């Protein structure tokens, strides 16, 4: 009789708490949380990391991460993170923000952390809608997309075009690493994790502002099933928000650039 040897290959990262989720079925916040937690574990920076949570569905992000956390006012996470990082430069500080938080009410704050080259990392969840308040138009809502505040679809003559934050922020000299990834399938999730790791490494090296935008789903407010939502990201969001590396600091190892080829291919 041969002895069974069990090898544990998948478990909860130390950087995540053992708690139930409040996120809706099929929502990709959980995936994004886990990727960040895996990176914090793998880089062994969990004990020196401080997170700043936004307002929106991820307002309770601090319930899931096993790290110190502050809860910011809507859109102000980058300013709060600035205060934290400036008096604790030896810590790793990140913000976790949705599209309404980052690109609408907090547009000034995110623009200026990038402009200053603030040495923080931002994880930007773009699901093209306001989740927590029940499905209103976001600054990233697509033309024609129906929301509760654009019931006939986003009319660009009235509401203008979506804001593309990677495209905007990558233009600023203080940005060291600004990339867009997607969470709609496994290969893209793996690329997203690599990018999150690169962003935290940029902060560790003191190169400046780093941001990973993650195209994400909102089955509840899109009115789609979880699988339909992932398809909707692929079919509708990818064309509007092209994946890619919008800014990569010249001091970063060339290996990071392989991701670009993978995304473009």
């Amino acid at each position, binding site marked *: 009789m041969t002895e069974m040897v069990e090898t544990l290959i998948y478990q909860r990262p130390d950087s995540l708490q053992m708690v139930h989720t409040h996120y809706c079925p099929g929502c990709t916040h959980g995936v994004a949380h886990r990727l960040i937690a895996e990176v914090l574990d793998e880089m062994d920076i*969990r*004990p*020196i*990391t*401080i997170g*700043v*949570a936004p307002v929106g569905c991820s*307002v309770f992000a*601090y319930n899931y*991460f*096993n*790290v*110190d*956390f*502050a*809860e*910011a*006012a809507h859109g*102000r996470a980058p*300013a*709060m*993170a*600035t*205060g*934290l*990082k*400036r*008096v*604790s430069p030896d*810590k790793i500080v990140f913000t976790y923000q949705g599209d309404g938080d980052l690109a609408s009410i907090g547009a*000034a*704050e995110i*623009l*200026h952390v990038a402009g200053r080259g603030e040495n923080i990392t931002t994880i930007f969840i773009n699901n093209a809608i306001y989740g927590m308040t029940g499905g209103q138009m976001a600054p990233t809502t697509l033309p024609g997309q129906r929301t509760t505040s654009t019931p006939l679809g986003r009319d660009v003559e009235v509401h203008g075009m979506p804001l593309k934050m990677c495209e905007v922020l990558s233009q600023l000299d203080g940005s060291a690493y600004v990339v867009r990834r997607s969470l709609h399938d496994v290969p893209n999730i793996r690329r997203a994790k690599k990018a999150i790791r690169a962003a935290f490494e940029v902060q560790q090296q003191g190169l400046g502002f780093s941001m990973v935008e993650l195209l994400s789903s909102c089955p509840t407010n899109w009115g789609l099933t979880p699988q339909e939502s992932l398809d909707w990201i692929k079919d509708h969001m990818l064309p509007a928000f092209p994946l890619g590396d919008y800014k990569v600091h010249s001091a970063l190892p060339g290996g990071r650039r392989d991701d670009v080829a993978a995304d473009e291919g």
Partner: protein
Amino acid sequence: MTLELLEGNTAFAEAAVRAGCEAYFGYPITPQTEALEHMARRMPELGRVFLQAESEVAAINMVYGAACAGVRVMTSSSSPGVSLMMEGLSYIAGSEVPVVLVDVMRGGPGLGNIAPSQGDYNQMVKGGGHGDYRQIVLAPATVQELIDMTYEAFDLAEKYRCIMVVLTDGNLGQMMEPAELPPMQAVRSKADRPAWSLTGADGRRPNVISSIYIDPVIEETFNRKLMAKQAEIEANEVRFREFMLEDAEVAIVAFGTAGRIAQSAIRAARDEGIRVGLLRPVSLYPYPYARVAALAEQVRAILVVEMNGGQMVDDVRLAVQGRVPVEFYGRMGGVTPLPEEILDQIHRLRALQPAAR
């Protein structure tokens, strides 16, 4: 005692430096900009943090972040800028992190002007931001008091884990007069940051600083905790100054610059044989209600002088409860009253019939 000729704005900024303030975040606005400029030079020189924010909205949230890290932190601004900080102040109150704010008031509403005013009494003393909270508000009348109150503000903010406001106006901010600066305190070492602060969950459970209590019953419990703290502040921190009140039959109640000008008017009235004195509330929250109530038992009438349309006068009337007439004299929009104007009011009050007891 070594007196130097010091300008108010520069002096309070240096007092903060000497109180061990580790970080300053601000945005230029007249008439307090000299404070920001002083910090821009001094803080980096001492290896501390100075950052000019993109707005007062960002500045107060940077202050909020640094306060969460457990360091002594402050900002300063003037009326329109402080209005922009109200969101952040409410969050700070809801998170119980210690923060110091100096508000150098100017004429309003709106863009108003850059001249001295006391028009933001209600905003700063009664709350300002949303939700149930109060902040300690101290009102200096001299550059020396402005220095001393800013210096002490950090201790008070930390003692109660609350917002500590030094409420002054463009007169004191821009004025130069002899004053003495306090001794230099070292900044807190990283090892001494408070147990609640965000320093990384290294060998302990994570600390979370938040102002959200999604369950109304738990939010109410938190509100009650804030109320209990306020009761403690009201019991311990009431401050006021008196001038020639012992034999007064008429009293003036005025704070800050208005109180200082009233002193000149009182000297002139005394020369005419009029028995008038001054009660100058120094803590505007907690307000010296008991002292004002006691004053109503002594004098025939009370004159409230403010550089606004009548804001603190409501608190005086609340304390007096109709026992004696409470008259009001105010100049608004950035106009500072002259002693002669207040003397005319003293004459008017003296002619009032005694109140029925």
